[in-house]
Protein backbone atom coordinates (compact mmCIF):
# COMPACT_ATOMS: atom_id res chain seq x y z
CA UNK A 1 0.00 0.00 0.00
CA UNK A 2 1.44 3.32 -1.02
CA UNK A 3 0.67 6.95 -1.58
CA UNK A 4 1.73 9.46 -4.20
CA UNK A 5 1.91 13.20 -3.55
CA UNK A 6 2.21 15.47 -6.58
CA UNK A 7 3.61 18.94 -6.03
CA UNK A 8 1.54 21.17 -8.32
CA UNK A 9 4.10 23.94 -8.13
CA UNK A 10 6.44 21.74 -10.19
CA UNK A 11 4.10 19.52 -12.24
CA UNK A 12 3.80 20.58 -15.88
CA UNK A 13 1.22 17.96 -16.87
CA UNK A 14 3.51 16.12 -19.30
CA UNK A 15 1.65 12.82 -18.64
CA UNK A 16 4.83 10.69 -18.53
CA UNK A 17 3.90 9.44 -15.03
CA UNK A 18 0.42 8.52 -16.25
CA UNK A 19 2.06 6.45 -19.00
CA UNK A 20 4.41 4.78 -16.50
CA UNK A 21 1.92 3.80 -13.76
CA UNK A 22 1.46 0.01 -13.90
CA UNK A 23 -1.84 0.25 -11.99
CA UNK A 24 -3.26 3.11 -14.16
CA UNK A 25 -4.07 5.19 -11.09
CA UNK A 26 -2.89 8.57 -12.34
CA UNK A 27 -4.77 10.94 -14.65
CA UNK A 28 -4.68 14.53 -15.87
CA UNK A 29 -6.73 16.78 -13.62
CA UNK A 30 -9.50 18.95 -15.10
CA UNK A 31 -8.50 21.92 -12.95
CA UNK A 32 -5.67 24.30 -13.85
CA UNK A 33 -2.76 24.74 -11.45
CA UNK A 34 -1.22 28.08 -10.41
CA UNK A 35 1.43 27.56 -13.11
CA UNK A 36 -1.29 27.19 -15.81
CA UNK A 37 -0.91 23.47 -16.41
CA UNK A 38 -3.32 20.59 -15.93
CA UNK A 39 -1.42 18.65 -13.26
CA UNK A 40 -1.42 14.88 -12.79
CA UNK A 41 -3.55 13.57 -9.94
CA UNK A 42 -3.82 10.25 -8.14
CA UNK A 43 -7.21 8.51 -8.27
CA UNK A 44 -6.95 5.58 -5.91
CA UNK A 45 -10.24 4.91 -4.10
CA UNK A 46 -9.47 1.20 -3.62
CA UNK A 47 -5.94 1.72 -2.31
CA UNK A 48 -4.28 -0.10 -5.22
CA UNK A 49 -1.13 2.06 -5.24
CA UNK A 50 1.82 -0.14 -4.31
CA UNK A 51 4.27 2.74 -3.93
CA UNK A 52 6.52 1.28 -6.63
CA UNK A 53 7.89 4.71 -7.48
CA UNK A 54 7.92 4.35 -11.27
CA UNK A 55 6.00 7.62 -11.64
CA UNK A 56 8.64 9.47 -9.63
CA UNK A 57 11.40 7.77 -11.64
CA UNK A 58 10.20 9.17 -14.97
CA UNK A 59 9.01 12.58 -13.69
CA UNK A 60 11.08 15.30 -15.43
CA UNK A 61 10.28 17.88 -12.79
CA UNK A 62 10.89 15.87 -9.62
CA UNK A 63 7.33 16.78 -8.64
CA UNK A 64 6.32 13.39 -7.23
CA UNK A 65 6.90 12.08 -3.72
CA UNK A 66 6.17 8.43 -3.14
CA UNK A 67 5.32 7.01 0.27
CA UNK A 68 5.18 3.34 1.13
CA UNK A 69 3.89 1.52 4.16
CA UNK A 70 6.67 0.70 6.57
CA UNK A 71 7.31 -3.01 6.77
CA UNK A 72 7.13 -4.49 10.26
CA UNK A 73 10.38 -5.86 11.56
CA UNK A 74 12.61 -3.87 9.19
CA UNK A 75 15.26 -2.00 11.10
CA UNK A 76 15.74 1.74 10.74
CA UNK A 77 18.54 2.63 8.37
Amino acid at each position, binding site marked *: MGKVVIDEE*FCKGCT*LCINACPQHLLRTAKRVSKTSYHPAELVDPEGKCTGCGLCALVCPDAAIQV*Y*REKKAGVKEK
Partner: protein
Amino acid sequence: MEMEMVSGRPKTLLPVPTHYCPGCGHGVIHRLVAEVIDGLGIREKTVVVAPVGCAVLLYNYFDVDAYEAAHGRAPAIATGCKRVNPELVVFTYQGDGDFAAIGTAEAVHVAARGEKITTIFVNNAVYGMTGGQMAPTTLLGQKTTTTTSGRASETAGFPIRMSEMIATLPGAAYVARVSVSSPKNVAQAKMAVRKAFETQIKGLGYSLVEFLSQCPTNWHMTPVESVRWVEEQMVPYYPLGELKVPKEEY
Protein backbone atom coordinates in the same frame (compact mmCIF):
# COMPACT_ATOMS: atom_id res chain seq x y z
CA MET B 1 -0.16 2.88 9.62
CA GLU B 2 3.22 4.44 9.27
CA MET B 3 4.39 5.63 5.85
CA GLU B 4 7.97 6.24 4.79
CA MET B 5 9.08 8.29 1.82
CA VAL B 6 10.71 6.08 -0.82
CA SER B 7 11.37 8.69 -3.48
CA GLY B 8 11.33 12.45 -3.50
CA ARG B 9 13.31 15.47 -4.57
CA PRO B 10 17.09 15.14 -4.10
CA LYS B 11 18.73 17.78 -1.88
CA THR B 12 21.17 18.90 -4.57
CA LEU B 13 18.26 19.87 -6.83
CA LEU B 14 17.08 23.29 -5.65
CA PRO B 15 13.32 23.59 -4.96
CA VAL B 16 12.55 25.81 -7.94
CA PRO B 17 10.50 25.02 -11.05
CA THR B 18 12.65 24.60 -14.17
CA HIS B 19 12.22 26.50 -17.44
CA TYR B 20 12.17 23.28 -19.49
CA CYS B 21 9.19 22.33 -21.64
CA PRO B 22 6.76 19.71 -20.26
CA GLY B 23 8.19 16.23 -20.81
CA CYS B 24 11.75 17.41 -21.54
CA GLY B 25 14.47 14.88 -20.76
CA HIS B 26 16.70 17.51 -19.14
CA GLY B 27 14.60 17.43 -15.96
CA VAL B 28 15.11 13.68 -15.48
CA ILE B 29 18.83 13.97 -16.21
CA HIS B 30 19.19 16.85 -13.72
CA ARG B 31 17.46 14.74 -11.08
CA LEU B 32 19.64 11.69 -11.74
CA VAL B 33 22.85 13.71 -11.49
CA ALA B 34 21.59 15.37 -8.30
CA GLU B 35 20.70 11.98 -6.80
CA VAL B 36 24.17 10.63 -7.59
CA ILE B 37 25.83 13.71 -6.06
CA ASP B 38 23.69 13.19 -2.94
CA GLY B 39 24.44 9.48 -2.89
CA LEU B 40 28.20 9.94 -3.12
CA GLY B 41 28.11 12.81 -0.60
CA ILE B 42 30.19 15.12 -2.79
CA ARG B 43 27.93 18.17 -2.95
CA GLU B 44 30.41 20.44 -1.16
CA LYS B 45 33.24 19.66 -3.56
CA THR B 46 31.41 19.38 -6.88
CA VAL B 47 31.73 21.95 -9.65
CA VAL B 48 29.51 21.94 -12.73
CA VAL B 49 30.37 23.71 -15.97
CA ALA B 50 27.18 24.84 -17.70
CA PRO B 51 26.89 24.77 -21.50
CA VAL B 52 25.19 26.99 -24.02
CA GLY B 53 21.90 25.41 -25.03
CA CYS B 54 18.66 24.63 -23.27
CA ALA B 55 20.56 23.77 -20.07
CA VAL B 56 22.30 27.16 -19.99
CA LEU B 57 20.55 28.11 -16.74
CA LEU B 58 21.41 24.89 -14.95
CA TYR B 59 23.27 26.68 -12.16
CA ASN B 60 19.83 27.92 -11.03
CA TYR B 61 18.77 24.33 -10.40
CA PHE B 62 21.85 22.63 -8.90
CA ASP B 63 23.01 23.41 -5.38
CA VAL B 64 26.69 23.17 -6.39
CA ASP B 65 29.27 25.67 -7.59
CA ALA B 66 29.13 26.41 -11.30
CA TYR B 67 30.91 28.04 -14.20
CA GLU B 68 29.26 29.24 -17.38
CA ALA B 69 31.46 28.40 -20.36
CA ALA B 70 31.53 29.87 -23.85
CA HIS B 71 29.69 27.79 -26.43
CA GLY B 72 31.36 24.37 -26.65
CA ARG B 73 34.24 25.27 -24.34
CA ALA B 74 32.99 23.63 -21.16
CA PRO B 75 35.65 20.83 -21.23
CA ALA B 76 38.42 23.47 -21.45
CA ILE B 77 37.08 25.31 -18.38
CA ALA B 78 36.62 22.03 -16.54
CA THR B 79 40.21 21.03 -17.37
CA GLY B 80 41.54 24.22 -15.81
CA CYS B 81 39.37 23.85 -12.72
CA LYS B 82 40.34 20.20 -12.21
CA ARG B 83 44.07 20.75 -12.74
CA VAL B 84 44.19 23.61 -10.23
CA ASN B 85 41.96 21.81 -7.70
CA PRO B 86 42.46 18.07 -8.21
CA GLU B 87 40.44 17.29 -5.07
CA LEU B 88 37.25 18.69 -6.63
CA VAL B 89 34.75 16.65 -8.63
CA VAL B 90 34.23 18.51 -11.90
CA PHE B 91 31.64 17.69 -14.51
CA THR B 92 30.37 19.35 -17.66
CA TYR B 93 26.78 19.17 -18.82
CA GLN B 94 26.51 19.62 -22.57
CA GLY B 95 23.97 19.27 -25.33
CA ASP B 96 24.57 18.01 -28.84
CA GLY B 97 25.09 21.48 -30.29
CA ASP B 98 27.65 22.20 -27.59
CA PHE B 99 29.47 18.85 -27.48
CA ALA B 100 29.09 17.45 -31.01
CA ALA B 101 29.10 20.62 -33.15
CA ILE B 102 30.89 23.76 -31.99
CA GLY B 103 32.77 22.02 -29.18
CA THR B 104 33.96 18.89 -30.99
CA ALA B 105 37.62 19.91 -30.74
CA GLU B 106 37.40 20.37 -26.97
CA ALA B 107 35.29 17.24 -26.59
CA VAL B 108 37.76 15.02 -28.45
CA HIS B 109 40.91 16.50 -26.95
CA VAL B 110 39.71 16.47 -23.36
CA ALA B 111 39.29 12.71 -23.80
CA ALA B 112 42.59 12.40 -25.67
CA ARG B 113 44.37 14.07 -22.76
CA GLY B 114 42.55 11.81 -20.33
CA GLU B 115 41.46 14.67 -18.08
CA LYS B 116 39.87 13.37 -14.91
CA ILE B 117 36.51 15.03 -15.46
CA THR B 118 33.03 13.75 -16.28
CA THR B 119 30.82 14.85 -19.15
CA ILE B 120 27.05 14.46 -19.18
CA PHE B 121 26.19 14.66 -22.88
CA VAL B 122 22.52 15.17 -23.73
CA ASN B 123 21.71 14.03 -27.26
CA ASN B 124 18.21 14.96 -28.41
CA ALA B 125 18.96 14.92 -32.16
CA VAL B 126 17.99 18.55 -32.64
CA TYR B 127 19.05 22.09 -31.64
CA GLY B 128 16.51 22.73 -28.91
CA MET B 129 17.16 26.28 -27.68
CA THR B 130 17.32 27.94 -31.09
CA GLY B 131 14.11 26.38 -32.35
CA GLY B 132 14.69 22.92 -33.78
CA GLN B 133 17.40 23.22 -36.44
CA MET B 134 19.40 20.21 -37.63
CA ALA B 135 22.15 19.06 -35.26
CA PRO B 136 25.11 16.79 -36.10
CA THR B 137 23.21 14.04 -34.29
CA THR B 138 19.96 14.49 -36.27
CA LEU B 139 18.94 11.15 -37.76
CA LEU B 140 18.77 10.58 -41.51
CA GLY B 141 15.29 11.39 -42.75
CA GLN B 142 14.41 13.38 -39.61
CA LYS B 143 12.53 16.60 -40.31
CA THR B 144 13.82 19.77 -38.67
CA THR B 145 13.38 23.47 -39.52
CA THR B 146 16.56 23.38 -41.65
CA THR B 147 15.93 19.94 -43.19
CA THR B 148 12.27 20.35 -44.06
CA SER B 149 12.07 17.23 -46.24
CA GLY B 150 14.20 15.13 -43.88
CA ARG B 151 17.97 14.99 -43.39
CA ALA B 152 19.65 13.70 -46.57
CA SER B 153 23.19 12.28 -46.41
CA GLU B 154 24.07 13.76 -49.84
CA THR B 155 23.83 17.32 -48.58
CA ALA B 156 23.95 17.09 -44.78
CA GLY B 157 26.19 14.08 -44.14
CA PHE B 158 25.65 11.43 -41.52
CA PRO B 159 24.83 11.63 -37.80
CA ILE B 160 27.85 11.46 -35.48
CA ARG B 161 28.07 8.73 -32.86
CA MET B 162 30.05 10.72 -30.28
CA SER B 163 30.34 7.98 -27.68
CA GLU B 164 31.86 5.47 -30.12
CA MET B 165 34.30 8.14 -31.28
CA ILE B 166 35.38 9.05 -27.74
CA ALA B 167 35.59 5.38 -26.69
CA THR B 168 38.42 4.75 -29.18
CA LEU B 169 40.67 7.16 -27.26
CA PRO B 170 42.90 5.61 -24.58
CA GLY B 171 42.36 8.60 -22.26
CA ALA B 172 38.64 7.85 -21.94
CA ALA B 173 38.10 5.42 -19.07
CA TYR B 174 34.33 5.14 -18.89
CA VAL B 175 31.93 5.70 -21.80
CA ALA B 176 28.26 4.75 -21.72
CA ARG B 177 25.12 5.57 -23.64
CA VAL B 178 21.83 5.57 -21.77
CA SER B 179 18.33 6.88 -22.27
CA VAL B 180 15.53 8.28 -20.10
CA SER B 181 12.67 6.85 -22.14
CA SER B 182 11.34 4.28 -19.66
CA PRO B 183 11.59 3.56 -15.91
CA LYS B 184 14.06 0.75 -16.62
CA ASN B 185 16.28 2.97 -18.75
CA VAL B 186 16.17 5.74 -16.12
CA ALA B 187 17.33 3.29 -13.44
CA GLN B 188 20.19 2.09 -15.68
CA ALA B 189 21.09 5.68 -16.52
CA LYS B 190 21.51 6.47 -12.83
CA MET B 191 23.95 3.56 -12.44
CA ALA B 192 25.94 4.82 -15.43
CA VAL B 193 26.16 8.35 -13.98
CA ARG B 194 27.30 6.90 -10.67
CA LYS B 195 30.03 4.83 -12.34
CA ALA B 196 31.18 7.86 -14.33
CA PHE B 197 31.58 9.93 -11.15
CA GLU B 198 33.33 7.06 -9.38
CA THR B 199 35.74 6.74 -12.33
CA GLN B 200 36.62 10.38 -11.88
CA ILE B 201 36.97 10.16 -8.10
CA LYS B 202 39.30 7.17 -8.46
CA GLY B 203 41.36 9.16 -10.98
CA LEU B 204 41.11 6.58 -13.74
CA GLY B 205 40.57 9.06 -16.57
CA TYR B 206 37.87 10.81 -18.57
CA SER B 207 34.28 9.62 -18.25
CA LEU B 208 31.38 10.31 -20.58
CA VAL B 209 27.70 9.46 -20.26
CA GLU B 210 25.62 10.12 -23.37
CA PHE B 211 21.90 10.49 -22.71
CA LEU B 212 19.37 9.97 -25.48
CA SER B 213 16.81 12.56 -24.47
CA GLN B 214 13.43 13.52 -25.84
CA CYS B 215 12.55 16.98 -27.16
CA PRO B 216 8.75 16.95 -27.52
CA THR B 217 8.53 20.62 -28.52
CA ASN B 218 10.93 20.56 -31.46
CA TRP B 219 9.96 17.08 -32.57
CA HIS B 220 6.30 18.27 -32.58
CA MET B 221 5.09 15.34 -30.50
CA THR B 222 3.44 14.75 -27.16
CA PRO B 223 5.84 13.71 -24.38
CA VAL B 224 4.56 10.12 -24.52
CA GLU B 225 5.01 9.98 -28.33
CA SER B 226 8.48 11.44 -28.00
CA VAL B 227 9.75 8.79 -25.56
CA ARG B 228 8.38 6.16 -27.94
CA TRP B 229 10.23 7.87 -30.80
CA VAL B 230 13.49 7.66 -28.81
CA GLU B 231 13.05 3.92 -28.42
CA GLU B 232 11.90 3.23 -31.99
CA GLN B 233 14.09 5.63 -34.00
CA MET B 234 17.08 6.75 -31.95
CA VAL B 235 18.07 3.56 -30.13
CA PRO B 236 18.61 1.53 -33.37
CA TYR B 237 21.17 4.12 -34.56
CA TYR B 238 22.57 4.96 -31.12
CA PRO B 239 22.69 1.60 -29.30
CA LEU B 240 22.47 1.75 -25.51
CA GLY B 241 25.02 0.27 -23.15
CA GLU B 242 28.49 0.65 -21.72
CA LEU B 243 31.03 1.12 -24.51
CA LYS B 244 34.07 1.24 -22.28
CA VAL B 245 34.65 0.47 -18.63
CA PRO B 246 37.83 0.89 -16.58
CA LYS B 247 39.98 -2.22 -16.57
CA GLU B 248 39.85 -2.63 -12.81
CA GLU B 249 36.61 -3.97 -11.25
CA TYR B 250 33.01 -3.42 -12.43
